[in-house]
Structure formats: C-alpha cells, structure tokens
C-alpha cells in the first residue's frame, strides 16, 4: 500500500512556539520552516524485530516483586490512519508518573513518594486490527514550574511510529473530566477544541473488568492516507 500525507492534517497540531508554555520560547525555530515534497526518505519508516516487545511489556503492574499502589486501570484502543484503517504491527511506547504524580526520572524531585513496585514504562505492538492494550495504574497530577501553582493534568505519554517516519507521533493521553484542563498550557497549545478533545480518553464501562480494573479507551489517529479512496 502506498500512503500519502496531506499537509492540511497538520492543522490539528500545536504551534512550535506557544509562549504560555515557557520552554517553547527558546526551543522553537524562529526562521521559516522549509516546505519540501515527500521523497522516499520521508515516506519510509522503521520496522521492528520480533524481540522489540516481550510478553508482559504491556503490563506495568507486574514489573516488580509487588503490585504498585493506585487505581489499576486498562488503557486500550486502536491505532488508525487518516482513512480510519487500522495500523497493524506498530510499536506503542508509554511512560507515566505513578499514582502519586511522581516520575521515577532522576530530575523529578517533587515531594511525592516513589513506588518501589512501579517504574511507569511499557510497550506494546498493535495486532492485525491495530489494537493495543496496557494494564497500569492511573497516574496522579503533578506540579511543575511553568507558572505559579502550575499542575499538569493526569496523563500518559505515548510514542508511536505508523507507516513512515513522518507519521511518527509523540503525544499525551488525558483522562475525562480533569479539572486541570483549563489551566494547562500544554493541553491548550492545541488550538482546535475538537482536536484537543481527541487527546482525552473515554471511560469504557464495557471493557472494565468487574472487581478488578476500570478501563479507558484511547484511539490514536496517525498521519497517512491511502492513494485510493476507501470504499464505504
């Protein structure tokens, strides 16, 4: 299958410079980006060996001797292209704070406890239907230094590849109804409200496992359309 990547779709992305998120000011290009046509170098992308994902990598609650504290949750969904077709066999990498809002990263020193039973990293490969599933705990919100009393809404970081190097996506999955949304410049850097809302997972009662875990559905759409229109 040959894919193409309409530039118009990038309207859903945040601008590179968004001064409310202060770190963008010194880290975004100031000169105009050069628009180039897509060559083989852009239209191709990596594939991964069978050993890229090991069984169990998708369960963040079973990486240590004991179980992590927090609300156990299932995060699952489909990875799709812009035609709504599944993206099979693509790598999904996630990382997140623990239930207290603390990252295991050495730079995160805010006074919330680390959990010896939680690293917060996972990976999965989508199946033939583009479906992926993780088991984890719900991450807590955490403070950051962007402005006075700044808190990030609870989120899970996602990294995906898709059909080519230009369908590569790093994003964040949020949880429905978070009261911190109006105050978060990273979430609000996405200008279009409908596009913003596509980063919010949906509570999924059907996938909830009784007496064990709540479920949240997060479908992800990557850049890429097929050369021939999909029949409906």
């Amino acid at each position, binding site marked *: 299958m040959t894919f193409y*990547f309409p*530039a118009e779709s*990038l309207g*859903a*992305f*945040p601008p*590179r410079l968004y001064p409310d*998120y*202060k*770190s*963008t000011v*010194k*880290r*975004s*290009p*100031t000169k105009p*980006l*050069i*628009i*180039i046509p*897509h*060559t*083989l*170098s*852009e*239209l*191709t*992308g*990596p*594939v991964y060996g069978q050993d890229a994902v*090991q069984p169990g990598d998708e369960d963040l609650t079973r990486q240590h001797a004991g179980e992590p504290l927090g609300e156990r949750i299932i995060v699952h969904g489909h990875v*799709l292209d812009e*035609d*709504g077709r599944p993206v099979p066999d693509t*790598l999904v*990498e996630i*990382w997140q704070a623990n239930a207290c809002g603390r*990252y295991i*990263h*050495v*730079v*995160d020193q805010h006074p919330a406890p680390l959990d010896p039973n939680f*690293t917060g*990293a*996972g990976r999965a490969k989508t199946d033939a239907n583009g479906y992926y599933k993780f088991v984890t705990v719900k991450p807590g919100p955490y403070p950051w230094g962007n402005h006075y009393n700044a808190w990030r809404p609870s989120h899970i*970081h996602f990294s995906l590849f898709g*059909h*080519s*190097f*230009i369908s*590569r996506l*790093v*994003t*964040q999955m949020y949880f429905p109804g978070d009261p911190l949304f109006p105050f978060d410049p*990273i979430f609000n850097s*996405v200008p279009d409200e409908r596009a913003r809302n596509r*980063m919010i997972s949906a509570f999924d009662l059907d996938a909830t496992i009784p007496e064990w875990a709540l479920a949240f559905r997060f479908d992800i*759409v*990557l*850049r890429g359309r097929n050369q021939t229109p999909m029949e409906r």
Partner: protein
Amino acid sequence: MAEITPSQTVGPYFAYGLTPRKNYDWKDTFGSDLVTADASGERIRIEGQVFDGDGAPINDCMLEIWQADAQGRYASPADSRARPNTAFQGFGRTPTDRDGRYVFDTIKPGRVPGLNDKMQAPHIVMAVFARGMLRQSYTRIYFADEAANSEDAILALVPAERRETLIAPKSLREGRAVYTFDVRMQGEAETVFFEI
C-alpha cells in the same frame, strides 16, 4: 476519514521510558549504534551538540535518525525495491548528555531516489524531540565530502546562505570518518528545519 491525534511534547522525563540505557530498570528498544555485523559500507560516526536560543546545550533532548543502507535502500515496506540483504535497520535513537552532546555510530548511506527519480545526495533524516517542543522538528544531515550535494533537489530548496547548517564537516579519528552535526534551535546559525 479520521482526524489525526495532536502532538504533545515528549517532556523532561522520557528517558526511563524511551532511552533508559542502563540508568533505569527498563529495556531499550533502540540504540545509537546502528551498525550490524553484516552491514556493508563505510562505518562512520555522527556527533554533535544541541543548543537552545541562548546557545545553552539542551541536555534533555531525544534525537532519532532514519537512513538508507550503503546501497541506498530503506529497510521499510514502503521501499518497494529489493530489500537490503543485511540486518541493517537504519533507525537510531539517542538522548543528549549533560552537555547536550550525542553520538550515532552508523554506516554512510547510499543515494536514494528523489523527485522525478533523480538521485538525492546521501543524507540522513533526523527528528528532534525535547521538553519545550510541542512537536518534533525534522532536519537532514548531509555530508560535506559529497559532490552530489550541489545537485540535490531538497538542498536546492534551502536558501543558499542557510545550507551550511545541514552539511556535516568531516574529520578523521583513528582512521574513521567522524561527521559533526550540531543542532541549533535558534540564532544566527539556526539549523534548517523542514515542514513535512
């Protein structure tokens, strides 16, 4: 038709998930050494530093590169030509260190077809991710010792006075070619980034 999911920053804490190296209790999916035992071609090193608008090194950056093999073939289903007869995957990932430095060990890519089937000069595509970057920035690494640079259709789209930022000078270290490619997000010598 489905609408794409917006990009968000990789943030300051990606290392334990995406580039744990030996610092965290997690396995790396990708490393900075792309060379496989069976890969033909010239072994090269690409190294450099990443700087912000104040000229300060960015020490929480992640760089990814994507390239063809020495015969100019991509290890990708989207490259319909003969598949490389090696395990060479052509994809690498690295964090920057405390001084904003990075290193990739790889092989020099061959020429790949470009617009109107005209061959491109050898190059590597690079994506830059970091805290403060709401989406990745794409650039290209070209090689200073390639005469083909002068006829490359993509380089020709770049204003002449800015092309230098994409062309990595070569030096020799212990007999091996080392190409230096710094990434400057801003400033007079701001690296050329592409909208793709």
